[in-house]
């Protein structure tokens, strides 16, 4: 007999998004259960370094900033791939999110009135901060923004934010279960009523039945194997279990962000805050190549643009060659030891501990590396997943979709708190309005199914491939053929290889039959899911014959607003060997498609007028049965203030 537990709101994921969501639901009086692979404070949110965007406008270089400017920066950053209404809602709520965190204890860096010395576009400047602003939350510069906007706690912003949010979870007495993994959603194709869970201490399965279920499981960078800045636990199981329902689509999975400055070769992130604070990128000849490449924004163009320039530098022989492949340099020497040991303390420590260098005197070896998943579980503005009532998603696991084809640095932390609150409110409303539709048999059946999969792995014998070899093959496929620059031939190859790897996975054999959680079995149970996410990513990229944001096709170099001003939806109908792709409009356009202000300006313009495009949005969404999401926009805007 399997254990079955009940709760009102089940939150899968104990990072910033999941916990913010849980706080909202608990405050509304619901019983809430948070599940996490690791103790919540070890969720990957803790590794966020540089900052959290919110238009408070507190320092001189942020003067005149406001949510509208933030919204415009976000849409430009997205290369017009974002849902603009969601981006606006987000930008309006971000200041509240930062202040809420201050209230919960985040030690934000504060404005120091009087003379301050900064590095801006390669020069040291002295700026007088107003004493009136003394003690308000300070900002630093980040890529792709018109103003200094990122609020920060040294280079440990995510850590500080997560500890504050988790303290609030403790205060509210919310139940948290760590070292557990949601394996499968319990649903009947129309309504989600919970999840099957595996205990990572004992290997045992149990089910949790809930009125509302929220997935906040973070990104899935590990489908690129070790070629990612993400934690080892960012394997995308939340997105995968949604995809495995057969009905819930994932949005824009081909939109994958590469961060310009990961430490070579380990892939550990060095925050964009380094360039925000005045750091340079240098090539092998020690030239600042970004100054010529992007005279306006220089090192602080958006991440997709900077990563491409870096890839070109290395392709053209300007990289520093090593046995682990080429890299470029990040130069922070001019910022000085004092700055590095305070405002960029975590960067200083990473350099010292992992490569044995002092960034005050030495150059840092960096190269672009997979970093962020813009794609994820497609949800409406209210966080409801498409096609399955009672299922919600928030944070990096979701495609809410304020990032479109390129996320701006610092926007993700802000998203987790803003979306966490909104989706928490909506999941609470849903839980209030619904009874447990729990059929105990459904829970037991799903649990048995999940257990059966594990048993099959343990029983399979013979000389099949190892799960780790298949993972390594997947990583090579993804980094080589679905990377920064993409081409139809390469992507087609990726699809073939991934299908082969999926097949290999079905005949792979475990080397260890150890009882209990068995780490090899634990990974094997994830591997097929990771391959499915990888395949959806490669297929979406192959189908999208344009270049937009981080999706850059050398065979289709132009952004094509005539044919591709839309969002990819990928569903994987149960029993099919391949996913199905469809498309929906990006959403109502308030900001007409135009030049981002950095990167290439050549593009194929849309032939429709904005009014025609907008007129079609509602009609198409209604036809697809998704009116709810469109209406909710307005109700959230009203209730959120």
């Amino acid at each position: 007999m399997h254990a079955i537990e009940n709760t009102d709101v089940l939150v899968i994921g104990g990072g910033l998004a999941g916990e913010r969501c849980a706080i909202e639901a608990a405050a509304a009086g619901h019983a809430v259960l948070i599940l996490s692979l690791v103790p919540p404070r070890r969720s990957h949110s803790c590794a966020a370094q540089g900052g959290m965007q919110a238009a408070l406008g507190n320092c001189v270089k942020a003067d005149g900033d406001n949510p509208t400017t933030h919204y415009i920066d976000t849409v430009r950053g997205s290369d017009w791939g974002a849902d603009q209404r969601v981006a606006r809602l987000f930008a309006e709520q971000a200041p509240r999110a930062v202040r809420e965190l201050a209230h919960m204890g985040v030690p934000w860096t504060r404005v120091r009135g009087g003379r301050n010395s900064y590095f801006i576009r390669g020069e040291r400047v002295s700026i007088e901060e107003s004493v009136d602003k003394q003690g308000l939350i300070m900002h630093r510069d980040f890529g792709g923004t018109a103003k200094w906007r990122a609020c920060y706690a040294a280079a440990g912003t995510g850590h500080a934010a997560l500890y504050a949010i988790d303290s609030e979870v403790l205060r509210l007495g919310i139940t948290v279960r760590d070292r557990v993994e949601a394996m499968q959603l319990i649903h009947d194709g129309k309504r989600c009523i919970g999840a099957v869970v595996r205990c990572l201490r004992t290997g045992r399965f149990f089910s949790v039945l809930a009125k509302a279920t929220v997935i906040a499981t973070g990104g899935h960078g590990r489908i690129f194997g070790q070629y990612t800045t993400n934690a080892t636990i960012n394997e995308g199981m939340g997105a995968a279990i949604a995809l495995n329902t057969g009905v819930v689509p994932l949005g824009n999975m081909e939109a994958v962000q590469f961060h310009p400055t990961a430490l070579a070769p380990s892939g550990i992130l060095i925050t964009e805050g380094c360039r925000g604070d005045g750091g340079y990128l240098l090539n092998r000849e020690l030239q600042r190549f970004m100054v010529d490449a992007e005279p306006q924004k220089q090192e602080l163009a958006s991440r997709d643009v900077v990563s491409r320039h870096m890839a070109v530098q290395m392709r053209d022989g300007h990289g520093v060659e090593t046995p682990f492949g080429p890299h470029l340099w990040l130069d922070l020497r001019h910022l000085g030891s004092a700055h590095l040991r305070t405002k960029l303390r975590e960067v200083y420590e990473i350099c010292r501990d992992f490569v044995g260098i002092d960034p005050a005197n030495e150059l840092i070896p960096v190269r672009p590396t997979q970093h962020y998943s813009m794609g994820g579980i497609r949800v409406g503005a209210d966080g409801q997943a498409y096609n399955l009532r009672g299922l919600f998603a928030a944070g990096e696991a979701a495609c809410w979709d304020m990032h479109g084809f390129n996320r701006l640095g610092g926007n993700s932390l802000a998203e987790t708190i803003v979306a966490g609150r909104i989706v928490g409110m909506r999941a609470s409303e849903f839980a209030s309005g619904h009874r447990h539709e729990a059929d105990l048999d459904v829970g037991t059946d799903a649990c048995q199914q999940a257990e059966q999969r594990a048993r099959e792995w343990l029983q399979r014998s013979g000389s099949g491939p190892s799960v780790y070899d298949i993972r390594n093959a997947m990583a090579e496929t993804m980094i080589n053929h679905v990377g920064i620059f993409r081409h139809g031939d390469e992507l087609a190859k990726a699809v073939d290889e991934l299908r082969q790897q999926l097949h290999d996975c079905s005949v792979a054999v475990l080397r260890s039959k150890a009882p209990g959680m068995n780490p090899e079995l634990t990974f094997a149970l994830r591997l097929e899911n990771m391959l499915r996410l990888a395949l959806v990513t490669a297929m979406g990229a192959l189908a999208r014959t344009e270049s937009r944001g981080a999706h850059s096709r050398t065979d289709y170099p132009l952004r094509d607003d005539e044919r591709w001003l839309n969002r990819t939806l990928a569903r994987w109908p149960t029993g099919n060997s391949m996913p199905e792709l469809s498309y929906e409009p990006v959403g109502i356009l308030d900001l007409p498609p135009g030049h981002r202000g950095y990167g290439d300006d050549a593009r194929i313009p849309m032939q429709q007028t904005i009014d025609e495009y907008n007129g079609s949005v509602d009609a198409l969404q209604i036809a697809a049965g998704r009116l709810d999401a469109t209406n909710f926009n307005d109700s959230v805007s009203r209730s959120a203030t």
Partner: protein
Amino acid sequence: MSRASPAGRRLTFEIFRFNPQAEQPQPHMQRFEIEETPYMSLFIALNTIRETMDPSLQFDFACRSAICGSCGMMVNGKPSLGCRTLTADLPDLIRLQPLPVFKLIGDLSVDTGVWFREMAASSEAWIHAKQAFNPNAAEERMDDELAATLYESDRCIECGCCVAACGAARFAKDFKGPAGLNRIARFMMDPRDERDDSDWFDVFATEDGVFGCLGLMACHDICPKELPLLEVYAYLRRKALTTARKRD
């Protein structure tokens, strides 16, 4: 100094093994030999062992950049973060054991999460706000100096290394430990928290609190985040004395 150690060394690992889920669990040490590679950390070494030699080996890593606190373990007798320990800094023989004090889950994996949660709950380690959050108001001001001081002690990643190194924590089950006391000091210093010194007194000025410390201060030396634990203890002792005097 470069951390790319000269390649070609053959490393011997002796690793503590114990699977409580096995039918007849037997704790023992197991030997593995691997080739050292440049920049090899224990994160790389342990994954290499698991993926090519013994896939049942249990250990915990997540961020592999010394910020999540998952991978505390005893490395040649010293509590350390596995991910930022480079083999280049170690001798040819490397003995790995789980952190003491915490409940063992299996092999090198221990339950630090539950220990820290209970500790935080028992000392109510959250801001006791003076008033409810006002979404329409600007943030309360704070001097940047103070913010930096708070950040300094907020940086604890709850890896458990200090607790494992602590003579008192090994014997006194309820001792809050260096990390616990640091967390308390962090909230005591925060003006956003309405608790005053006398509210705190019963939490930290006890045998389970700062007076449980034996004064060995191994915690200060091994903290991977270099938290100023000596100063934290001095601060708490000072507070205990001044508060006690006021109470008299």
